[in-house]
C-alpha cells in the first residue's frame, strides 16, 4: 500500500511537473510575444524593423542627372505589384523575386499611385499628361484610356457605379469604370498667384462625394449628378496658400478635412457645419488609421490626432522633406520623406524606429502588404525596394 501510495504520489509529482512544464511553455509562449514586443522597442534608429529582401531597377537615370525623383506608388494584385514611373511605362513586378513580369508603354510619366479595382479586376493609373488608364493586371494591356483636363497625380476613388477622379486643374470627374467615359464634372476656379503643389482625392460616402480645392473650399457633390450639395471654406483668415490638398474622409459620422492655411477640421457631413477645428498649419495630407487620424503638416511634421481633434503625438522630422500619407501596419506607421527615404515609426507613440534611405530620398509612398508583413517602395533613383517588417 505504501509502495502504491508512493508510486501514486511520485506519479502525481511527475504529472504535476509535466503540467508545470506545460505551464512554463504557455508562459514562455506569452513571454515570447512580450519579448518580441520589447525587441521591437530595442530596435533603435537607424536599423532593425524593416529588412530588405530585393530591389529592382524600374527606371534608370543617367549619372548626369544629379537629383532624380520618382513619385509613383504601386497597387498589389495577388503576387504582383503594378506601378508606373516617370519613364513613361507601367510595369508589373513579381513580389517574390523582384522580376519584371510585363511592361507597357504610356504617353506620359506617372507620378501618382496605382489603384486596384477588385470589383472589375483592373488597375487604374493616371499620367502627367492627363490620361487615365485601366490596365489588365494579368497582361499589362490597356482596357481603356481617356484624357482629362490636368495632370493626374492620384488614382481615382473607386465607387460602386463610378470612379471619382480629381486632377491638378481643380476638377473632379465621375468616370464610367466600364469604358472610361466621363459622366459629369465639377470644377472650381484656381486662385491667382501661387498655390501649394498637390491636390485632394475625392471621397465618396453614401450619396455624396466630398472634394477639396485649391481655393480653400471643401464641397459635397451629388454622386449621380455632380450637383453641389454644400460648400465650406476652410481658409480661416488667410487669403493665400489656402489649398485643401488633404483628401477629405468620413469616419464615425464626421467629415475630416484640412486646408494648408486653416488646419484641421471636423465637419458635419450633411451640411458642412464645423464641429471642431485644430490649428495645424501647413496640413497637406490626412489619413485615417484604426483609431486615430494622421495629419501631414509642412510645419508640424506628422501628427496623430484623435477623432475629436486632440493631438496625441507629434513627430517633427524637419529634414525629411515632403511626407507621404502614413500607412498603419502592425505596430508600425510607415511613410516616405522626399529627402530622407522611408520612415518607420511606432504607431502608438510616434517614436522613430528606422529610416531606410538608399538613394536620396523617396517621394513615392510605400505599398503595404499587411498580411505578408512586407512593403514595396520606389526610391527617387528609380529603384524599387522590397522590405519585410518584423514584429
Amino acid at each position, binding site marked *: 500500500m505504501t509502495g502504491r501510495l508512493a*508510486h*501514486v504520489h*511520485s*506519479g*502525481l*509529482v*511527475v*504529472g*504535476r511537473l*509535466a503540467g508545470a*512544464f506545460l505551464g512554463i*511553455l504557455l508562459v*514562455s509562449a506569452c513571454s*515570447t510575444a512580450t519579448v518580441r514586443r520589447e*525587441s521591437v522597442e530595442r*530596435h533603435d534608429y*537607424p*536599423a*532593425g*524593423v*524593416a*529588412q*530588405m*529582401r*530585393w*530591389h529592382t531597377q524600374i527606371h534608370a537615370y543617367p*549619372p548626369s542627372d*544629379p*537629383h532624380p525623383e520618382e513619385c509613383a506608388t504601386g497597387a498589389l494584385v495577388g503576387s504582383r505589384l503594378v506601378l508606373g514611373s516617370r519613364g513613361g*511605362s507601367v510595369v508589373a513586378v*513579381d513580389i*517574390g*523575386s*523582384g*522580376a*519584371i*513580369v*510585363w*511592361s507597357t*508603354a504610356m504617353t506620359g510619366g506617372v507620378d501618382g499611385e496605382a489603384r486596384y479595382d477588385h470589383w472589375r479586376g483592373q488597375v487604374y493609373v493616371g499620367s502627367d499628361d492627363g490620361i487615365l488608364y485601366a490596365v489588365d493586371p494579368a497582361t*499589362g494591356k490597356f482596357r481603356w484610356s481617356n484624357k482629362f483636363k490636368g495632370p493626374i497625380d492620384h488614382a481615382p476613388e473607386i465607387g460602386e457605379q463610378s470612379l471619382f477622379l480629381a486632377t491638378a486643374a481643380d476638377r473632379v470627374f465621375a468616370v464610367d469604370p466600364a469604358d472610361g467615359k466621363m459622366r459629369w464634372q465639377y470644377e472650381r476656379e484656381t486662385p491667382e498667384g501661387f498655390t501649394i503643389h498637390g491636390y485632394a482625392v475625392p471621397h465618396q460616402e453614401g450619396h455624396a462625394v466630398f472634394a477639396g480645392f485649391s481655393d480653400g473650399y471643401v464641397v459635397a457633390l451629388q454622386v449621380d449628378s455632380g450637383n453641389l450639395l454644400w460648400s465650406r471654406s476652410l481658409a480661416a483668415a488667410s487669403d493665400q496658400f489656402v489649398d485643401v490638398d488633404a483628401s477629405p474622409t468620413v469616419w464615425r459620422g464626421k467629415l475630416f478635412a484640412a486646408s494648408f492655411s486653416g488646419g484641421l477640421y471636423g465637419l458635419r457631413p450633411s451640411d458642412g457645419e464645423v464641429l471642431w477645428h485644430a490649428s495645424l498649419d501647413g496640413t497637406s495630407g490626412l489619413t485615417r488609421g484604426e483609431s486615430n487620424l494622421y495629419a501631414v503638416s509642412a510645419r508640424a511634421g506628422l501628427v496623430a490626432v484623435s477623432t475629436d481633434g486632440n493631438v496625441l503625438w507629434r513627430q517633427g522630422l524637419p529634414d525629411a522633406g515632403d511626407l507621404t500619407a502614413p500607412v498603419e501596419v502592425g505596430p508600425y506607421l510607415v511613410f516616405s520623406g522626399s*529627402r530622407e527615404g522611408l520612415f518607420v515609426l511606432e504607431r502608438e507613440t510616434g517614436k522613430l524606429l528606422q529610416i*531606410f*534611405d*538608399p*538613394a*536620396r530620398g523617396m517621394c513615392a509612398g510605400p505599398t503595404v502588404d499587411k498580411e505578408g508583413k512586407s512593403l514595396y517602395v520606389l526610391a527617387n*533613383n528609380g*529603384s524599387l525596394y522590397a*522590405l*519585410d517588417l*518584423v514584429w
Partner: protein
Amino acid sequence: MAVAKALEKELKRPDEFVSFWTHLGEMLSKRRRGVIALLITAAVGIGAGWGLTAYRHGAAAKATVAFERIERIANADLLPEKEPEKGAAKAESTEDSDVPRFKTEKERLEAANKEADAFLAQFGSEGLGRKALADKASRLLVLGNAAEAASIYGSLAANETDPGLRIVELEGVAVAREAEGKLDDALRAFTSLADECQRGSKFYLDHALFSEARVLDKQGKGKEAEKILREILDKAPKTTLRSQIDDRLALLTEK
C-alpha cells in the same frame, strides 16, 4: 442497501477525480528517463529556435544597413568640378555625413564595388548577396571590366531559379560579351536569351531579338539582321522599339 450504494458512489468519485493525473503520473514515472530527456530536448529545441530566429533577424537587419550603404555610395553626389568662389552662397547640399563624396563617376563606382565586396565577404552571395553581385556586375560593365561582369552574370544565371531574373542575368552575359568585342559569344548569348523569352512570358522577346539583329549587323550579316527585325514587327507590332527598328531597317535597305 441504498446507503451502501451511495457510499460506494461517493468513494468512487474521488478515484475518478484523481484518475487522470494518477494514470498520467504512473505512465510518466515508468518512463521517467525518457520524459526528462524529452523535456530537456524540448527546452533546448525551443531555446535554439528562439536563438536562431533572433540571430536571423539580427543578421537581416545588419545586411539591410550594409546594402543600404552600398546603394548610398553608388548614388552619392559627385564633388563639384570647381571649388565655389569665396563669398558665393553655398548650394543646397544633399551630402550624407556618413557617405564619402567622389571627384569622378569612376571613383564612385569603384568605391561602391569595394563596399559590395565587403558585403559579400560578410553576408555571402545568397539572398541579398545575389543582388549585390548583379549590381556589382553592372558597375563593372560601366568601368570597362566586361570579362568579370560576364563571369558574374554567367554564374548568377547558371543557378537562377526565377525565370524573370534569369532573363535579366542572361542579358547581362550577352551585353558583357558584346562589350568585350566577342561578337560570336554575344550572338550566342542573345540567341539563347531570345529562346528563353520565347519559352517564358515573351514580354522581353522584342528586346532580345533586336539585340540579336544589332550584333548580326555588326558582324556584317545584314540580310539575317533584316530578317530578324521584320520578325519582331510580325510578332510584336506594338513594340516600343518600333521607331528604332524602322530606322535600322531603312539603313539596312540602303546598304
